[in-house]
C-alpha cells in the first residue's frame, strides 16, 4: 500500500445520507478477480444512464469535481455489504479522503486498508465543509493526517480523531499481514493452548 500523503484538493459534496455500497459499486462489477480498474464504475448507476452515457448533473460528472480527491458525505456513508470493491473503486477514481458524521463499520475498516482516510466530524463541522465543497473548484479542503486536522477554504481548522494504529499503518503504507506475522509466536502459543482446551474447535 502506498503511503498516505496530505491532501489539498477539491471535495465533491454528496449530502445524501446512507450512501450504501450498492450505490458506490453496483454488484455487476463484483465479478472481477482483480482489485484495480473499478474507478470508472464508481457510483455507476448514479453516474451513467442505461445507455452508459454520463448523467450531467451527477456531482462527479460536473467539470469542477471530475478530479475530486475528497468526498464530503451525509451520515452513515458506506452502509450495506462488506465488498472491498467499494474502497477499491473510490481509490481508483482518485478519492483519498471521505468526510462524514459516521460510517458503517466494515466500510470504515476497509477504507484504511486501501489508503483512504475516512474522517469523522461533528454535524456542524461537516456542514461547513459541505458548503465549501458546493463551491467546487473555488474551494479547497486540506487534510493533514499527521496533525489530524482538516481545514476549510477560509482556514478554519477542525481536529479529528483516528485510531493510532490505523494512522500509523496508513501513514507508512504498512501491510497488516506482515505486521501480524511478526507476532506469529504469540498466535502459535495461543493456538496450542486453545486447541488443548477446546479440541473440537
Amino acid at each position, binding site marked *: 500500500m502506498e503511503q498516505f500523503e496530505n491532501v489539498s484538493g477539491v471535495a465533491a459534496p454528496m*449530502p*445524501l*445520507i*446512507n450512501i*450504501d455500497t*450498492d*450505490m458506490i459499486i*453496483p*454488484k*455487476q462489477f*463484483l*465479478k*472481477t*478477480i*482483480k*482489485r484495480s480498474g473499478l474507478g470508472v464504475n464508481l457510483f455507476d*448507476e448514479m453516474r451513467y444512464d*442505461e445507455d452508459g452515457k454520463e448523467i450531467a448533473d451527477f456531482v462527479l460528472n460536473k467539470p469542477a469535481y471530475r478530479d475530486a480527491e475528497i468526498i464530503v458525505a*451525509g*451520515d*452513515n456513508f458506506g*452502509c*450495506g*455489504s*462488506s*465488498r*472491498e470493491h467499494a*474502497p477499491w473503486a473510490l481509490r481508483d477514481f482518485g478519492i483519498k479522503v471521505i468526510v462524514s458524521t*459516521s*460510517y*458503517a*463499520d*466494515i466500510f470504515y*475498516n*476497509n477504507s484504511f*486498508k*486501501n489508503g483512504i482516510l475516512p474522517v469523522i466530524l461533528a454535524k456542524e463541522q461537516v456542514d461547513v465543509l459541505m458548503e465549501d465543497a458546493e463551491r467546487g473548484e473555488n474551494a479547497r479542503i486540506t487534510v493533514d493526517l499527521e496533525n489530524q486536522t482538516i481545514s476549510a477554504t477560509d482556514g478554519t481548522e477542525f481536529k479529528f480523531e483516528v*485510531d*493510532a*494504529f490505523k494512522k500509523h499503518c496508513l501513514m507508512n503504507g504498512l501491510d*497488516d*499481514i506482515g505486521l*501480524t*506475522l511478526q*507476532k*506469529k509466536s*504469540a*498466535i502459535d502459543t*495461543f*493456538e496450542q493452548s*486453545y486447541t488443548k482446551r*477446546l*479440541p*473440537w*474447535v
Partner: protein
Amino acid sequence: MSAPKTIYDKIWNAHVAHESDDGTCLLYIDRHLVHEVTSPQAFEGLRTAGRPVHAPDKTIAVPDHNVPTTVDRLNGIANEQSRIQLEALDKNALDFGIHYYPVTDIRQGIVHIVGPEQGWTLPGMTVVCGDSHTATHGAFGALAHGIGTSEVEHVLATQTLIQKKSKNMKVEITGSLRPGVTAKDITLSVIGKTGTAGGNGHVIEYCGQAIRELSMEGRMTVCNMAIEGGARAGLIAPDEKTIEYVKGRPHAPKDADWDTAVAYWATLFTDEGAQYDKVVTIKGEDIAPVVTWGTSPEDVLPITATVPSPEDFSGGKVDAVRRSLAYMGLTPGTKLSDVAIDTVFIGSCTNGRIEDLRAAAAVLKGKKIKDGMRAMVVPGSGLVRAQAEEEGLAEIFVEAGFEWRMAGCSMCLAMNPDQLAPGERCAATSNRNFEGRQGRGGRTHLLSPAMAAAAAVTGHLTDIRDFS
C-alpha cells in the same frame, strides 16, 4: 469474583491471541467461510507473497453469489466473468487445501446456510466471512461478522483478525409474538426503530421471551439482519434448541468432545448485572407484520400503514425519503396493502431455510399465483431443496406457479441472471432494498416468506392476517 460479563465479552476474551498496549487485539478465528466474490484477490495476495493458508481445516469455501440457479447450470455457466470467478474458487480451494462444496455438490448453497447446516458453526466460536450477512451465525451464540477482502487475506494468512472490541448493545423482545408475526418482522421492526446506523460500533445481543421462543431458523433470520441495523454482529445465547440443532451435524463434536463442548456452551450467557452500552426493548405483542416502503432497511412500517411523506421526517432523511419515493414510484398516503407487485422472490440467507419454505408453502397450498406474476423460490442450499422436495413443498410451489430453483444467493443481490428489470416491483424475503439492489431500477419490498407468498397470490402487498 470477576465483573459480570456479557456473552460477547466472554467470547471475545476467549479469543484474544495478542493484545497491544493501545487495546488493538489479534482475535483468533475459529471458522473462516469463503465465497467466490470476495476471495479471489485475497488468494492472489497469498500467492504473490508466497504465504500458505494458516489453518485450511478451519476454512470452508462454497460458491453462492454468482451461481445461476437454473437446473441447467451443471452444463456450464454462460457468463464468462462469472465462470472465471467460479473457476478461480475451484482452483483456490484445491491449491490451498481448504474444505469445499462445489456447485455440483448437493451440500452447495448460500454460505450462511451451509455453515450451520454442516455443523461448522458452533456456539462460542468466532466466525468470519467476506460477506456482511455473516452475522447470521450469531444465532448459535457465536461471534460472527463480515470482513473485507484485505481481512479475508489476513485471516487466511494468520487465522486472526486485527480488532478493537466493540460496544455491547442489548435488544430485548419481551413477551410473545402475535399470530402472523415472524422472525423477519422482529428484525425489520428493530431496524425500523434503531435506524440503519443504530448499531454502528456495537455487537447486538438479542434476548427476551420472543427470541427464546423462535426456532433456530428464526434466530438466524433475526441475527442475519443485525448488519442492516449497523451492528457488525448480532448474537443469541445458546440454549436447548441450539444444542438440539447442532447435535449430529457432520462437523459437530462427537462422543467425549460433545460432552466437553456442551459443558462449555452452558457457560455462554450474559451474567446477571452485566452492563450494556445501549439497550432497546420492544414488546413482542406490539410487533406487526411489516414491509419496507423505501430504499433503506430502516424504511419499515406495519402492512396496515400508508406510504409516508418526506415531511414526516427531519434532517437529512427528508431528502433521502424524497429520493426513495421517486425511485420506488410511490405516492404518500397510499395504503401499503394497495401497492401492486409483479415479482416475488423467496430465498436468501435471511429466509431461504426449510422453515421459511414451509411457511410460504402453507400459504400457497391449493392456490395459484396471480396471472402475469413472476415468482421464484430459491432454496438456501441443495439440502434444503432436497428436504423441501421430500416434504412435498416443491410440488406446492410448482402447482401454485412458482419457479423451483437451485440453491444460491440469486435475486437477493442479482449478480447472477436472476434480476429485476427497471420499474419492476418485487416482494422479497431478502435483506436489502437499496436502489438497484435486485437490478437497475428494480423496486424491492422486504417482508416475511408468508407475506411474500400471499402477495404472489393477490398481486399486491397483503396483510397475512387477512389472507385466507
